[in-house]
C-alpha cells in the first residue's frame, strides 16, 4: 500500500461559537471578522513544513488540493504549494500528489497541463495528477460556473489536458467550452505518456465509469469513515468488474482521518477538541451551497430524492462528540496498535491500495501535528505497508521512478 499525507490547510483559530453565529464555513464566511492574514501566513508555512516533515518521515506521498472562499481548507491554487513541496522534497522518494487543480474552473484548462508539467519537471517525475470535478461551493458559487455545465466542462477539460500532454503535433482545439488555435504546451511532463491520473469522487456512478473506462485511480474522499464508505466502494468495485477490469487494489484511493498517540486515552486527551472542531466548524456548510439544482445529473437526483432528499448525511454532526466520531470510524484514533489494526482492517475491507491520511485536523497546532506524523510514520506505517504484497499487484497509478529504486534527482 502507498500511504500519503493529505493536508487541507484549514483556518485553525475560528471562534468557539462559530457554527452558532455564522451561516456557513464555505462561500460566505466574513474574512474581515474571522481571519487574520498574519496568522494565515503562519498556517501556510506550517502546512508546508508539516507536509515536508511527513515526506522526511517516510510517508510515500504528500497531497494538497484546491478550494475557495472558506475556512475549511483554502489553497486556492494547490500548485503554488505543490511547487514549494516539489523543490523541498527533491532527493526523497516521495510523490507530489496534487488532488488537485479543479478542471472546470481552470481557464483555459491547458493551464493545468502546463502547471502539472512544471511540477513533474521540478520534482523529477514525482507528480500524481489529480483531476477533480470541484465542489459546488467552489465551482458554482465562488467561480460562477452553471451547475448544469460542470460535468461537461470537466470532460472537455480532461480530454484537452491529456491531448495537450501527449500530442506529438501542435493542434487546434475546437471545443464546446474552449477554443484554442495552437496548442503546444511547454513544458511537457517527464512521465510518459503522462503522469498517473487520480479522480476524486463522492460516489456518483458516472465518476466510477469515467475512472474505470480510462483506467484511472478512483479516490473516494470521505470524512465519514470506512463503514459508511463500504457501500460506495463496493459499488465502484462491482462496476470495475462489470467492465472486465482487474481488481488491482491500487485502482482505489481512500481518505481517512487518523490521530495517533501513546495510548487510546492520551489520543482522546490530545486530539478530541481538534476532531470536534473539524466536524463542527470546518464541515459547517450551508446545505443550499452543497446541492445547487443541476449539480447532480438526472439519475443521481432521482436517486437522492427517492432516498429521502437533500442534505445527504443521516448524522447530525453538531450533536456528535469525539467518541461518536471514533466509534463510527470517521476518525481512526488511539495508540499505534489500535490505529494499525483498524487501518489494516479498513484497507482490506475496502480494497484500498492508495491510502491518504489526514494527519492535520481542524485546529490542531503545529507541534501536535508533528507528533501525529512522527508516531504514524514510526509506529503505524511500517505495519500497514505490506498489506497487498502477497497479491503481487503493481501500482500503475504511482510515478514510475518511485516504484523501483532510482537514483535521486535534484
Amino acid at each position, binding site marked *: 500500500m502507498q500511504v500519503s499525507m493529505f493536508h487541507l490547510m484549514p483556518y485553525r483559530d475560528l471562534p468557539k461559537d462559530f457554527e452558532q453565529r455564522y451561516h456557513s464555513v464555505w462561500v460566505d464566511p466574513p474574512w474581515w471578522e474571522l481571519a487574520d492574514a498574519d496568522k494565515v501566513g503562519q498556517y501556510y508555512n506550517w502546512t508546508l513544513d508539516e507536509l515536508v516533515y511527513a515526506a522526511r518521515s517516510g510517508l510515500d506521498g504528500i497531497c494538497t488540493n484546491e478550494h475557495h472562499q472558506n475556512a475549511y481548507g483554502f489553497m486556492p491554487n494547490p500548485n503554488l504549494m505543490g511547487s514549494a513541496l516539489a523543490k523541498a522534497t527533491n532527493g526523497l522518494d516521495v510523490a507530489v500528489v496534487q488532488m488537485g487543480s479543479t478542471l472546470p474552473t481552470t481557464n483555459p484548462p491547458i493551464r493545468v497541463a502546463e502547471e502539472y508539467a512544471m511540477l513533474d519537471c521540478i520534482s523529477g517525475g514525482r507528480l500524481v495528477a489529480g483531476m477533480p470535478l470541484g465542489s459546488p461551493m467552489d465551482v*458554482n*458559487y465562488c467561480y*460562477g*460556473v*452553471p*451547475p*448544469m*455545465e460542470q460535468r*461537461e466542462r470537466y470532460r472537455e477539460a480532461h480530454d484537452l489536458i491529456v491531448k495537450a500532454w501527449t500530442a506529438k503535433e501542435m493542434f487546434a482545439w475546437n471545443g*464546446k467550452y474552449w477554443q484554442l488555435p495552437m496548442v503546444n504546451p511547454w513544458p511537457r511532463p517527464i512521465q510518459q505518456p503522462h503522469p498517473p491520473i487520480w479522480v476524486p469522487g463522492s460516489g456518483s456512478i458516472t465518476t466510477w465509469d469515467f475512472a474505470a473506462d480510462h483506467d484511472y485511480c478512483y479516490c473516494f474522499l470521505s470524512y465519514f469513515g470506512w463503514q459508511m464508505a463500504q457501500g460506495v466502494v463496493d459499488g465502484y468495485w462491482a462496476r470495475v468488474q462489470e467492465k472486465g477490469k482487474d481488481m488491482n487494489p491500487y485502482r482505489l484511493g481512500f481518505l481517512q482521518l487518523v490521530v495517533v498517540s501513546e495510548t487510546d486515552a492520551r489520543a482522546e486527551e490530545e486530539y478530541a477538541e481538534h476532531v470536534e472542531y473539524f466536524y463542527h466548524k470546518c464541515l459547517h456548510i*450551508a*446545505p*443550499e*451551497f452543497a446541492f*445547487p*439544482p*443541476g*449539480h447532480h445529473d*438526472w439519475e443521481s*437526483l*432521482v436517486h437522492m*430524492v*427517492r432516498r429521502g*432528499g*437533500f442534505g445527504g448525511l443521516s448524522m447530525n454532526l453538531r450533536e456528535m462528540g469525539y467518541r461518536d466520531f471514533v466509534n463510527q470510524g470517521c476518525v481512526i484514533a488511539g495508540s499505534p496498535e489500535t490505529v494499525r489494526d483498524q487501518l489494516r482492517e479498513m484497507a482490506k475491507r475496502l480494497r484500498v491500495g492508495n491510502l491518504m491520511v489526514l494527519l492535520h485536523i481542524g485546529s490542531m497546532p503545529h507541534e501536535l501535528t508533528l507528533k501525529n506524523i512522527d508516531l504514524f510514520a514510526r509506529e503505524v506505517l511500517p505495519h500497514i505497508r505490506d498489506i497487498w504484497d502477497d497479491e503481487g499487484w503493481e501500482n500503475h497509478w504511482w510515478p514510475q521512478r518511485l516504484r523501483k529504486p532510482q537514483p535521486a534527482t535534484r
Partner: protein
Amino acid sequence: MAESVATGPKGMFLEVWQGRLKASVKVAGEGPPLVYVHAAAGLRWDDFLGGLARHFTVYAPELPGTGDSDPHDIYQVESLWDVVLIMGDVLDALGLSGVPLVGHSFGGMLAAEMAAHWPERFSKLVLISPIGLWREDRPVTNWMAVPLQDMPRLMFRDLSSPAVQRLLAMPQDQEQLVMAQAKFVWALGCSGKFVWPIPDKGLKKRLHRVRAPTLLVWGRDDAVVPVEYAQDFASYIRGAKVEVVDGAGHVPQLEKLDQVLPRVLQFLQG
C-alpha cells in the same frame, strides 16, 4: 372568487432542432392562440393559465429537459441564443405568428428575448415579474441558492390565496411525489443553465427592439425581482404599461388572481 381549473391541458411533442429534440408543448382552451412561457421551476398548469384558457387556446412550450420532455434534452441546448431559436422552431412547427405572448419570471425574460428577436411575430406581450436585468442597488435574489423549504416564503407575499395553495399542493402518491420533487429541482437546474450566476445576459441591449404593445405586471412586495425593475423594463420598451399589484410577491397572477387575470385579459382583448 377564482373558479377552479375546468380541465387540464393536453400534451403534444414536436420534433424540432434538426430532430435532436422532441419539444413538449401543453395546450388547453378555446379561442385565438396565445403562447405562455413558464418560470424557472417548470410549467405548472395553474389557475391563471386555466383562466386564460377560457378565452384563448393556450400553447405552453416546456423548456427542453423540463416537464414531460426528456431530462437529457437539456444537453442539446448550449446557450440562451439556442433557447430563443428553439422556441422559434416550436412556434414555426405550430404555425403560430401574430399571437400574444405571456411569460412569467424566467419565462418573462425568455418572452422578452423572443419579442426583441422577432419584433413582428407577437401581437401583444405580457411580462409578469420578469428576470433579465440587474441593478447593483437592488440585486435579483438568487433563487437557486435558497433552501427548498424557504422557497414558498421567497416566492409569495400572500400564501393564503386558494390559487397559491393549489399550486403548492403535492401529490399524495409516493412515486409521483418523488418525480414531482425531482422535476422541480431539475427544472431549476435546466433554466439555471442560461442565467447562472447572474440573470443578466444583455437583455437591456435588446429590449428596445420590442414593438408589441407591452404590459408589465409586478407584485409590490416581490422578494425575487424587486418592483423597481418594473420601471427599468418600462424605460426600455416603448409605451409599456406597468401594473403594480399590492399585497403580492413574485407570483402576482396567483396571489391576486382576481385582480391580475381580468387586467391581463382586458389588455389582451383591448
